[in-house]
C-alpha cells in the first residue's frame, strides 16, 4: 500500500518509548486515519496529540549528523510521517498565516528530505496566497523567512522569481535607507540572507554554477550562527533546513546528474524550458546515475524502464530524447499507443526543444492514407522537426511505405506504455513494431507501467542483459483507496401490487451511497450519504413465496456513482471511468446536473459551441465544469478537454477506460465505475493493468499530496474488494496476444480455411490471424528492401523476435510458422508491384486485394474522363476526384469493408432503428466545403428529432467516417491510382491531397497547410484559405500578412476565439530562432515590436503587461506609458521567456525589443556583498 500509514514505517519513525509518552503505532494510525476520513467530509480538525507527535518526529528527523542516535532510514520515515501530519493540519485554514506557513514549511521540508519532492511543491500551492510580493517587507518581516523557504521548496520558478525579485528590491531599498550595504547583524539580516540564499540556489539550479551554491551556503550559515542577526528564530529554522537541502541539491539537480560532456543546453532545456524542472525525483536520479546501461549513454542500445504511473517516466523520456538530440546524429521517434499521452508529450517537448533550437515534427493524424511525402513536401522544410511523436499505427504506416527512410532517419525510438503490447486488438501491432525495431541498430528505449514479469520482457528485448531493466516503486502523492456501494435502505422499502400471479408485488428500496474508505492497512471506515436524500432506488419483483428478483426501473449504477462523485469534488478534479461511450455522456449529465455553472470552463464552452454546435450534449455539461471524453469526439475536442482539465478549467471528466483514447492526465480523484456488459470485447474489459492505469491517474504530482481512488462496485460489500485496487505481479504480467485464446482460435479458423480454400489468405476474417498474415507480408517486403539495415534478415528470425514466439510452445509456434509459410508462398507468386502496394495499404490482405481491384476501376475511368489534349501532368480538382469515386460507388464499397467497423451508421433515436440512405457522398461534399457540424446534422439527419442526439451522431459519424476511415482508405486508392496512372503514362492524376482534405474537412491547399501546421480551428483555416485565395497569397505570404495584422487585427477580421489566437501565434512564430536559446547562450536576444505610431523615438526601458495567454504583450514604459506590443512573430517566443521565469531587462529601440538576462548578475552582486 503506497501510504505513509504503513505500521512498520510508523514504528520505525516513533522509536522506543515508555508507555503513554507518545501514541502507539495503532493510536497514531487511528489519529491520522480519523483526520483523513474527516477530510473526505470537509472537516479539517486535527488532534493536538497528533500535531505534537508530528513535531516530535520532525525533531528526530532534523538532528542532522546524529547518525549514532537515529539511522538515516528512521529520520527519512520521521520526516515523511511528520510531513503527512503537517500536511493534514494545513487543511484547517482558520489558522493564522504564521501557523500555516510554519506547518507548510515543516511539511515541505519533511517531504523534500524524505525524497518526496513533488509533495513539497503541492504544499506550496496550498499557501501560495500567503506569499506576498506586493506589501512592503517590513510589514511581514516576521514571516518573510518562512515565505521565502516555502516559495523556494515550491520550485515554481516564475512565481519564485517574481517574489524574490520584489523581496530583494525591497530589502535593498531598506538597506539603502539605513545606510547599509546589506542588512546583516540587524533584525532584518536573517530574512535578507535567506532571500539571497534562495536566489542563489535558484540560479544554481537553473544554470549549474556551483559558485552560487557556495554563496547560498555562506548566507544560510550566517543565519544559523546568528552573524546575520539575532532574534529571528523562524529564519534560523528555515536556514538550517535549507542548508541541509542545499547539500542534497548538489547531487539531485539536473546539472549534477547529466554526464559532464552534455551540452549545457540540454540541462537548460529543463531548467529554463517550460515547465521548468530544477531537481529530479529519486527514480529519475537513480536511473541517470547508473554506471552501466545508462539511458543517456549512446551505446545503451536497449533499455526497459518499468515504473509506476506518476514516477516521472515522461520526464525520463524527455531527458533521454533531449540528450540524444544534442549529442547524437539522427532524429528521435517517440511512440505511444495512448493518444492523450502523445499530446502530453508534444506539449512538454515543445518548449524544451526550442531551448535546444530543435523542433517537433507536425502533429499529423493517424490513418490518413496516401502520399505522405507529398504532404511533407507541402509542409515547407522549415516545418520538419527532429522529434516525431506518433502512435504505433502511424509509425507502422511509415514503415510500410518506406522502411528504409524511416530507419535511416531515426536513431532513437522511445516507446512509451510498452506494456500495451499485451492489449487484445492493438497490442499485436505494437509487439510487431517492437520486434521489428529490435532487429535494427537504432537505440530502443521502452517505457512501461508496472510489469509483473519485467525481467522476462527485458530478456525479450535484450537477451541475457538483465541490466536493460530499470524498475522503481517510488511515487509522489499518497493514495487513499475507497470502495463505493449502493446501499439499499431496506427499512424504507415500499411494496406495491403488480399484475402478475407469479410476482404479485413490486418492491422499491431507496438507495444511498456507502463509501468504505481505507486510510490505513488495517482500518476501514464507512461513510454514508444522507438517508433523507436517496440517490436512487432498487426495484425488485417479489414472488408469491417472498423471493425477490431484480426488475426493470432500478436506478442505473452509473447514476448512483455519478451523484456520489459530486461529494468528492471539493478536494479537486475528478475523473470518472465508465465502461461504455454512452455512459460517459449520461454520467457527465448527472454530475453536471448537480452543479452550478462554472466560470472556469467559459472558454472551453465557447470553443465547443463553435466546434460542435450549442445543442451538442457536451456543451451543456461543460458549462457546469463537467466534460465527457471518448473516441467518438473529434481529436481537437479531446485535446481541448484535456487541456482544460490540465488547467483546472474543468471540475470533472467522465471517460471510458479505453486506454488508447482515454484521459491520460492525472486528477485528484479517480472514480472507477465500470460495469461488465454483454458483448464486451476482451480488449475493453477492465483488467488489472487497465485498472492500475486508471487508478494511477489519482493524485497529481506537484499539485496535491494525496489522490483518492474510488472503485464503485455493484455487489455486496466485502473487505476483500480492496484487493482489486492492489493487483499483484501475476495480474500484471504482460504476454503476447499471439498466445491468447482469441489468437489461437483465429489461427485454427485460418488453418481450416487454408485446408479447404485456395485463396484462403484473402478470405481471412478480420482478427489476429489476418493481422498476423498482413504483418508477415510486411516483413517479407521489408526484408526485400532492408537487407542492409536489419540483422540476419529472414522471415524465421524476424518471427522469432516476437515475444509471442518466445513464450509459446513449439507446437503452437509451428502452427504460426505454417501460416507464415502460406503467406510467404503467396508473396513469392504475387506481382512485385502488388506486393509493395498491399504492404502500404495497412489493411488486411483481403482488403488490400479488394482495394487493388477498386483502383483498377478508378484508373480506367480517370483515363477515360481525362481531356485528350493534355501535354503535361494535371491533377483533377478535389470535386472531380470525389465525383469520380462517387460515380464508381467507391465510398459505399469502402464502407462495406470490415475495417469500416460500422462507420456512417445513424439511428433515429438512441435505441431506434438504423436510418437508411444517409448519403455519404453528399455529406462528404458538404464537409470538405466547410459545412459546420450543426449544418451537416440538420441537413442529413433531419429524421432524428432529438437535436442533441442529432448533433452528437453527426459529430461521431464525421469523426469516424471522414476523419478516420475514409481519409485512410481514399488516400490509399488515390495514391495507388496515381502510381498506376503514372505507370500507364497518363497525364491525368487524382487530387493527391484528397485524403487530407477529407481528414480535415477543407478544400483549399492553403487551409490544408494551415491545419497540418498545427492550426486546430477548421473554421479559421477555411476563412484564411479563402482570404489567401482572394489576395493571391501563398501560405508563407499569408503568414506575413497575419503578422502585420496582429492580434487586434485577427479579432477584427476573423472574430477569433482565444484558442484560435494561440494557433495563429504558433503559425506566425519565427521558427528556429529561439529567444531563450539566445538569452542563455549570449545573455541577450532581440524580438520584433509593433511600436505605437505616437511613441517618441529613442530607446526606452519597458516592462511587459498582459491580461491572459494569447492577449497582446504590451510594452509599457514608466514615464511614457504604452510604447507598443510584441510583434506576432515574436510573441510565442517572448511568452516562452516569460514562462521560463528568467529575469530579463527589456528595452525597446525602434522596432526591436532587446532582452538581457539579469538574474545571475543580481544575485552575484548581492551575495558578494554578503560574503564580504
Amino acid at each position: 500500500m503506497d501510504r505513509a500509514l504503513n505500521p512498520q514505517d510508523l514504528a520505525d519513525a516513533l522509536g522506543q518509548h515508555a508507555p503513554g509518552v507518545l501514541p502507539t503505532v495503532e493510536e497514531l494510525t487511528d489519529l491520522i486515519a480519523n483526520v483523513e476520513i474527516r477530510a473526505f467530509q470537509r472537516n479539517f480538525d486535527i488532534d493536538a496529540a497528533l500535531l505534537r507527535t508530528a513535531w516530535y518526529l520532525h525533531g528526530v528527523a532534523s538532528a542532522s549528523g546524529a547518525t549514532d542516535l537515529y539511522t538515516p532510514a528512521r529520520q527519512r520515515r520521521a520526516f515523511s510521517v511528520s510531513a503527512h501530519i503537517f500536511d493534514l493540519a494545513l487543511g484547517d485554514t482558520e489558522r493564522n498565516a504564521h501557523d500555516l506557513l510554519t506547518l507548510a514549511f515543516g511539511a515541505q521540508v519533511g517531504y523534500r528530505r524524505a525524497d518526496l519532492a513533488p509533495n513539497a511543491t503541492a504544499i506550496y500551492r496550498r499557501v501560495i496566497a500567503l506569499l506576498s510580493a506586493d506589501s512592503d517587507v517590513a510589514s511581514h518581516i516576521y514571516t518573510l523567512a518562512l515565505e521565502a523557504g516555502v516559495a523556494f521548496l515550491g520550485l515554481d520558478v516564475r512565481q519564485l522569481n517574481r517574489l524574490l525579485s520584489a523581496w530583494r528590491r525591497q530589502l535593498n531599498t531598506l538597506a539603502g535607507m539605513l545606510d547599509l550595504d546589506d542588512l546583516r547583524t540587524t533584525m532584518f539580516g536573517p530574512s535578507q540572507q535567506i532571500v539571497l540564499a534562495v536566489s542563489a540556489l535558484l540560479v544554481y539550479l537553473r544554470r549549474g554554477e556551483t559558485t552560487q551554491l557556495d554563496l547560498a551556503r555562506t548566507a544560510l550559515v550566517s543565519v544559523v550562527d546568528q552573524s546575520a542577526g539575532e532574534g529571528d528564530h523562524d529564519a534560523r529554522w528555515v536556514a538550517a533546513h535549507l542548508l541541509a537541502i542545499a547539500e542534497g541539491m548538489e547531487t539531485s539537480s539536473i546539472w549534477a546528474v547529466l554526464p559532464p560532456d552534455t551540452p549545457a543546453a540540454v540541462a537548460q532545456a529543463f531548467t529554463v524550458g517550460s515547465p521548468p524542472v530544477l531537481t529530479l525525483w529519486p527514480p529519475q536520479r537513480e536511473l541517470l546515475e547508473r554506471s552501466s546501461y545508462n539511458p543517456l549513454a549512446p551505446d545503451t542500445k536497449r533499455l526497459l524502464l518499468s515504473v509506476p504511473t506518476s514516477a516521472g517516466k515522461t520526464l525520463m523520456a524527455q531527458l533521454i530524447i533531449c540528450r540524444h538530440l544534442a549529442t547524437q546524429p539522427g532524429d528521435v521517434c517517440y511512440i505511444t499507443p495512448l493518444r492523450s499521452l502523445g499530446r502530453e508529450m508534444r506539449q512538454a517537448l515543445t518548449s524544451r526543444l526550442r531551448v535546444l533550437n530543435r523542433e517537433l515534427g507536425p502533429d499529423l493524424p493517424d490513418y490518413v492514407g496516401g502520399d505522405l511525402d507529398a504532404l511533407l513536401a507541402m509542409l515547407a522544410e522549415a516545418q520538419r522537426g527532429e522529434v516525431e511523436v506518433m502512435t504505433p499505427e502511424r509509425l507502422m504506416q511509415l514503415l510500410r511505405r518506406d522502411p528504409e527512410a524511416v530507419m535511416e532517419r531515426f536513431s532513437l525510438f522511445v516507446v512509451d506504455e510498452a506494456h500495451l503490447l499485451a492489449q487484445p486488438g492493438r497490442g499485436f501491432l505494437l509487439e510487431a513494431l517492437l520486434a521489428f525495431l529490435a532487429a535494427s541498430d537504432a537505440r530502443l528505449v521502452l517505457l512501461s507501467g508496472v510489469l509483473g514479469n519485467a525481467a522476462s520482457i527485458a530478456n525479450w528485448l535484450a537477451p541475457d542483459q538483465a541490466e536493460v531493466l530499470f524498475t522503481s516503486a517510488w511515487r509522489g502523492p499518497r493514495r487513499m483507496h475507497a470502495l463505493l456501494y449502493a446501499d439499499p435502505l431496506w427499512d424504507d422499502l415500499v411494496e406495491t401490487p403488480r399484475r402478475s400471479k407469479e410476482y404479485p408485488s413490486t418492491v422499491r428500496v431507496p438507495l444511498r451511497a456507502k463509501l468504505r474508505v481505507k486510510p490505513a492497512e488495517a482500518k476501514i471506515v464507512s461513510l454514508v450519504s444522507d438517508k433523507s436524500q436517496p440517490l436512487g432506488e432498487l426495484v425488485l419483483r417479489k414472488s408469491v413465496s417472498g423471493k425477490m428478483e431484480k426488475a426493470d426501473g432500478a436506478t442505473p449504477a452509473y447514476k448512483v456513482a455519478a451523484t456520489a462523485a459530486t461529494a468528492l469534488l471539493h478536494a479537486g478534479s475528478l475523473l470518472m471511468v465508465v465502461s461504455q461511450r454512452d455512459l460517459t455522456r449520461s454520467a457527465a449529465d448527472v454530475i453536471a446536473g448537480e452543479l452550478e455553472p462554472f466560470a472556469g470552463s467559459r472558454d472551453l464552452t465557447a470553443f465547443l459551441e463553435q466546434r460542435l454546435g450549442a445543442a451538442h450534449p457536451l456543451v451543456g455539461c461543460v458549462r457546469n465544469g463537467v466534460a465527457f471524453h471518448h473516441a467518438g469526439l473529434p481529436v481537437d475536442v479531446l485535446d481541448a478537454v484535456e487541456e482544460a482539465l490540465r488547467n483546472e478549467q474543468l471540475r470533472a471528466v467522465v471517460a471510458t477506460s479505453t486506454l488508447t483514447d482515454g484521459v491520460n492526465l492525472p486528477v485528484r480523484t479517480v472514480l472507477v465505475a465500470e460495469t461488465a456488459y454483454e458483448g464486451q470485447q476482451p480488449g475493453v474489459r477492465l483488467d488489472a493493468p487497465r485498472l492500475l492505469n486508471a487508478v494511477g491517474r489519482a493524485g497529481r504530482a506537484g499539485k496535491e499530496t494525496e489522490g483518492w481512488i474510488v472503485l464503485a462496485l455493484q455487489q455486496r460489500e466485502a473487505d476483500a474488494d480492496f484487493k482489486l485496487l492492489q493487483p499483484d505481479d501475476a495480474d500484471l504480467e504482460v504476454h503476447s496476444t499471439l498466445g491468447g485464446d482469441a489468437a489461437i482460435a483465429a489461427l485454427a479458423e485460418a488453418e481450416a480455411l487454408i485446408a479447404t480454400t485456395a485463396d484462403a489468405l484473402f478470405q481471412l476474417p478480420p482478427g489476429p490471424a489476418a493481422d498476423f498474415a498482413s504483418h508477415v507480408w510486411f516483413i517479407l517486403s521489408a526484408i526485400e528492401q532492408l537487407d542492409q539495415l536489419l540483422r540476419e534478415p529472414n522471415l524465421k528470425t524476424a518471427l522469432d523476435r516476437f515475444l509471442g514466439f518466445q513464450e509459446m510452445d513449439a507446437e503452437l509456434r509451428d502452427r504460426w510458422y505454417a501460416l507464415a509459410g502460406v503467406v510467404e508462398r503467396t508473396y513469392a507468386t504475387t506481382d512485385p508491384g502488388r506486393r509493395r502496394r498491399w504492404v502500404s495499404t495497412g489493411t488486411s490482405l483481403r482488403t488490400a486485394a479488394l482495394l487493388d481491384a477498386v483502383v483498377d476501376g478508378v484508373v480506367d475511368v480517370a483515363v477515360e474522363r481525362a481531356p485528350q489534349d493534355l501535354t503535361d501532368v494535371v491533377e483533377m480538382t478535389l470535386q472531380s476526384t470525389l465525383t469520380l469515386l462517387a460515380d464508381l460507388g467507391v465510398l459505399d464499397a469502402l464502407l462495406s469493408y470490415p475495417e469500416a467497423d460500422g462507420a456512417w451508421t445513424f439511428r433515429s433515436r438512441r435505441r431506434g432503428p438504423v436510418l437508411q440512405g444517409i448519403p455519404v457522398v453528399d455529406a462528404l461534399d458538404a464537409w470538405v466545403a466547410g459545412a459546420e457540424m450543426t449544418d451537416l446534422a440538420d441537413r442529413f439527419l433531419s429524421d432524428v428529432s432529438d437535436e442533441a442526439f442529432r448533433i452528437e451522431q453527426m459529430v461521431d459519424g464525421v469523426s469516424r467516417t471522414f476523419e478516420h476511415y475514409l481519409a485512410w482508405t481514399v488516400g490509399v486508392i488515390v495514391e495507388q491510382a496515381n502510381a498506376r496512372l503514372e505507370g500507364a503514362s497518363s497525364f491525368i492524376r487524382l487530387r493527391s491531397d484528397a485524403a487530407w482534405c477529407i481528414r480535415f474537412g477543407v478544400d483549399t491547399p492553403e487551409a490544408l497547410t494551415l491545419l497540418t501546421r498545427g492550426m486546430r480551428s477548421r473554421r479559421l483555416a477555411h476563412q484564411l484559405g479563402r482570404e489567401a485565395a482572394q489576395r493571391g497569397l501563398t501560405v508563407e505570404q499569408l503568414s506575413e500578412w497575419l503578422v502585420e495584422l496582429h492580434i487586434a487585427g485577427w479579432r477584427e477580421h476573423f472574430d477569433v476565439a482565444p484558442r484560435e489566437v494561440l494557433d495563429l501565434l504558433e503559425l506566425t512564430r519565427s521558427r528556429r530562432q529561439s529567444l531563450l536559446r539566445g538569452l542563455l547562450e549570449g545573455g541577450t536576444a532581440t524580438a520584433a515590436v509593433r511600436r505605437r505610431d505616437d511613441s517618441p523615438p529613442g530607446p526606452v526601458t519597458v516592462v511587459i503587461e498582459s491580461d491572459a495567454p494569447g492577449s497582446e504583450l504590451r510594452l509599457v514604459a514608466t514615464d511614457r506609458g504604452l510604447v507598443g506590443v510584441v510583434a506576432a512573430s515574436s510573441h510565442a517566443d517572448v511568452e516562452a521567456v516569460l514562462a521560463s521565469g528568467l529575469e530579463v531587462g527589456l528595452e525597446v529601440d525602434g522596432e526591436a525589443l532587446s532582452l538581457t538576462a539579469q538574474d545571475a548578475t543580481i544575485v552575484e552582486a548581492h551575495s558578494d556583498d554578503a560574503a564580504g
Partner: protein
Amino acid sequence: MMTAPAAAARVGTGVSAARAAEVAADRSDKVTAFVAVESRGTKASGKCAWQLVTISGLAIDERAAVAWLVADRLMRSRCGRAAAYSKWRDSVLTGLPLTGRDRDQVIAFTRDVFGMPDSPGSFDHLEGHVGEWLWYLLMSEREDPDRRIALLEPPKFSVTEPGPDGFVVYEVDGQPLLFRLWELKKHTGASGLSGTTREAYEQLGEQGDRYLAQLTAMHADKTGNLGQICAELVDLWVDADRRAGAGVGVTSAKLPAPARCFTTMGKHLPRFAEPGQLEALLCAVQDYHDVAADVRRFVWTAL
C-alpha cells in the same frame, strides 16, 4: 488588553535616559544589581524549585535604569551594526530628537514593537517583550555555583509570533549537559498568578515538542557535547530524561510577591519527576507598567 489611548498615556518615571544610563553605569550596567533574589521551593520530585526576583523599593531613577538597560540591549539587538543604534543612543542620551532620515532609520527598527508616539503599538505585547528581555538579562547575568550556561537563546525580535521563549543549556561538572525549555509570561492583572502559570504549563505541554523540534534544526551545526544534546532534544523531552527540564518565567506587577507559586507545575508536567527538572522564576516588578512605559519612552525620545 489596554486600549491604545490609555497605553499612550503611560509615560513611565519621567527620568531622563541620560540619568537612567548614568545610574545603570554606576551598577556596571547589570540588571541584577537592582534586584533582590530569593530561592523558593524545593528541588524535590514533582516540585518546582524557583527563584523570586524582586525589583522593588528602588528609587525612581533606579527603576528607570532597569528600563534603560532593557531598552539599550533590545535596541542593540535589533539594530546590529546599523548606525541607527548609535544615532538613537546619542539622541536619547542628549535629549535631542532625531529628524529626517536618521529618525526614519530608528523607526524602521522600532515601529513593529513600539508603534509611534501618535499610534502606539499594543502595550500588552510591549510588556510581554520587556518581560522576555528582563528574563534574558537576569539569566545571562545570573551566577549559579552549580551550573554554567553553555547556550542561552536571545529573545525573539517578534512580539506576536509564537516560538520558544527561552532555551538554556547548562554545563554541570562531571555530568552530561542538560537543558531547560522556558515558557515566559507576564502577569499584570488583578487576578492571582495561578491562571498565568497554568497557561504556561499548558503551553509547554502543547508546544514543547514544536519548539524543541525547531531548536534541533537550529542547532544542528553545533558540535561536541552541545551538538549531542541539541540532537536529542525531542527524545529527552518526551522521555522526560533527567537532562531535560521545563522552566516557567513570570514577570509580574504584583507586589508583594506571593509566598507560594508554581505549586501545581509538577501536576501539569508530571513526567518531569526528577528533582530539579522543574524550575521557575518569578520576577516581581514594582510599577511594571512604568518600567515597560519607560522602555518605550526611551525608544521614542529619539523620535
